[in-house]
């Protein structure tokens, strides 16, 4: 079908929060009838791993991130815990705790999990391409990643991207 719209996304981030935009946009585009590809490169490769527990969120040095508790009475949930960077960097496991709290907030709000969104993308035939150069650079094996991923380089990306209606770098 020649008149089918096309979307290409380059996914470069490897954190829980930044895993959302590529998967949300890709799955929605597919539902709207777009032919969609995501090219995963550098830290974006983390999103293709079989085990997604590597995806974490870090409030350290991220002044835009509200730090609120996902439980307790309303007044307590409304508090923004303004913890200094120096304290965050010294407390062991700070990122893991922040990630656990974020995952709970995500669940409380009826927002899909990353594994769920990734699966929805695959069901909708969104094509996943992993950048072979960064796979090797970071010492990954193809067996670290889920099935159905294709491996290629910049030229592979442009082959599809050159014909797209929308092209995003995330």
């Amino acid at each position, binding site marked *: 079908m020649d008149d089918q719209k096309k979307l290409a996304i380059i996914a470069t981030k490897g954190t829980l929060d930044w895993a959302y935009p590529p998967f*949300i946009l890709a799955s*929605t585009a597919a*539902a*709207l009838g777009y032919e969609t590809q995501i090219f995963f490169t550098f830290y974006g490769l983390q999103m293709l791993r079989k085990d997604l527990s590597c995806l974490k969120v870090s409030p350290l040095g991220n002044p835009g991130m509200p730090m609120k508790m996902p439980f307790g009475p309303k007044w307590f949930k409304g508090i923004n815990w303004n913890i200094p960077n120096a304290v965050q960097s010294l407390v062991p496991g700070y990122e893991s705790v922040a990630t656990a709290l974020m995952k709970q907030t995500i669940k409380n*709000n*009826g*927002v899909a999990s990353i594994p769920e969104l990734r699966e929805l993308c695959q069901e909708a035939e969104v094509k996943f391409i992993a950048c072979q150069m960064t796979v090797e650079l970071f010492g990954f094996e193809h067996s670290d990643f889920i099935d159905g991923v294709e491996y290629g380089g910049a030229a592979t990306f442009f082959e599809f991207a050159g014909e797209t209606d929308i092209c995003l770098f995330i």
Partner: protein
Amino acid sequence: MNFDKELDARGLNCPLPILRCKKSLNEMTSGLVLKVVSTDPGSVKDFAAFAKQTGNELLSSAEAGGEYTFFIKKK
């Protein structure tokens, strides 16, 4: 309004109501009507946009008591 299938998207947030709707429509034949109930305020604009872009017809869109009800006719 008469409908052939119902989708409960209560409690789900963007983009799940749209994705579930698309999935339900895939299982239906042309001309049948899907009823969707959502609690996501963003879904009002999203369902209108979904219908416009996919050619499925949004027969009605209504809000009552924090719930949004859509009737969509499959293309």
